[in-house]
């Protein structure tokens, strides 16, 4: 089974791009499953159901959605195996720029919307710097010159990755992503598999539900801003 993980900021175009890719793969008589992870709600179910393939949605609720993914990976894998899947697509929630929800042997893709991140692609963090493939969407909304400048910046953050421009509205460019997916690693087990990037150390009071602000409520790992060092006037 091939595992394909999509990360990317909210509304960057993950679902749109995945939809076009899978649509192009449907006549290959391969079994495809898709898992969407999100926090509180998700409407992906309705969209992916149109593809007539098994879809599962996991909501992390009180947990960080990336941790939730790591915790559930084996279960998702087994679920896809029960469906005799050749391809398992995972669309992650991709909420913060701290993490990269990627696996060492999976094909890891990061979807970036070039309109909202045009000024600072470097802010996107490990999601971009550790991806195997970077998919740049919404190029239809900027000029050719801006696209080239943007791609150049992305390349400077991660020059190992393959950068592909794709359009989530009409599917333009999605055939190139499909090609990489079809030719990616086949996994026979997740035994010994590792995350590409460690998750944050989450062991303070707020991790376990504290909502009050103030030193007396804080326990565990506490990291304070050093104002002497970081203040500028």
């Amino acid at each position: 089974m091939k595992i394909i993980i999509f990360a990317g900021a909210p509304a960057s175009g993950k679902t749109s791009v995945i939809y076009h890719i899978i649509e192009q793969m449907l006549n290959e008589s391969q079994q495809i499953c898709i898992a969407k992870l999100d926090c509180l709600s998700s409407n992906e179910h309705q969209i992916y159901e149109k593809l007539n393939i098994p879809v599962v949605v996991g909501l992390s609720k009180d947990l960080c959605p990336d941790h939730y993914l790591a915790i559930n990976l084996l279960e998702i894998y087994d679920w896809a195996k029960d469906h005799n899947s050749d391809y398992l697509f995972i669309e992650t929630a991709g909420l913060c720029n701290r993490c990269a929800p990627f696996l060492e042997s999976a094909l890891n893709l990061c979807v970036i919307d070039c309109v909202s991140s045009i000024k600072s692609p470097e802010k996107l963090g490990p999601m971009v710097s550790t991806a195997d493939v970077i998919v740049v969407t919404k190029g239809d909304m900027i000029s050719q010159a801006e696209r080239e400048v943007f791609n150049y910046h992305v390349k400077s953050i991660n020059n190992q990755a393959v950068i592909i421009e794709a359009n989530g509205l009409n599917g333009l460019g999605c055939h190139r992503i499909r090609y990489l997916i079809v030719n990616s690693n086949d996994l026979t087990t997740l035994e010994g598999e590792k995350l590409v990037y460690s998750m944050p150390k989450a062991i303070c009071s707020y991790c376990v539900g504290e909502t009050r602000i103030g030193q007396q409520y804080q326990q565990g790992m506490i990291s304070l801003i050093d104002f002497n060092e970081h203040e500028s006037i």
Partner: protein
Amino acid sequence: MKVFKYLQIKPGLTKTQEPETFECFALEKGKVYTIVGKTGSGKTQLIEDIESLANGSGLTKRTILLDNEIPSDTLRYAPHNQLVSHLSQNMHFILDMLVKDFIELHARCRGVSNCSGQVEKILYHANILCGEKIRATEKLTNLSGGQSRALMIADIAVNSSTPIILIDEIENAGINKLKAVDMLLDNKKIIIIVTHDPLLALSGDQRVVMSNGGISRIMTRSNYEIEILSLLNKSDKVLSNIRNALRQGRSLRGVSTDDLQVILE
């Protein structure tokens, strides 16, 4: 990018799965092709087939050949699109920078050594196309729709290294359309224009007419149409003069309403 002399489209199927009726259509460098047809008639899909060098397995079953040969997978799936430069429908820049800084940045990204010379060159071309001159010290985001479009076109004309240039609807952009097409014209490039505008539709050496998801006709521009084009171009100029006159607060007067040019005299 492998150089090729011509690109051919081999017929596929319409939306209702009927075979397209043309034989094999070759697009040559140095020529302009226009694609016309109603919204939803399959114009975008045709572009996509060209852009992705369709190999007969796609939605439309069309096949694209380069110099009579099926392009290699390496070329078809090359991550970077080396085939087509897109001038899309957007009319504004979103990067918040000075015009000159942006042109220099773009030049640096492309590995051009003389960045400041580039600013002059591109502005020179852009200012041929638009009514109001663009200044190097203006902000990109403050440019009008016409100025932005002119700058985007000039950039592609000067910089693009792809063998195909695709223009998606430049009508109503407040620029000189025919000059824009002229500027992009290059004997090493195929120009494809998707349009609803009669002036632009007639600027192509050949017109591809789309309907029901398929190519329904391929028409070569007649001499008569070339004459019509120069008439249309004249009236387009009159229209833009009238637009400018009204903008500048002048009133229109004249003896006859039959000949529009007189109104401005």
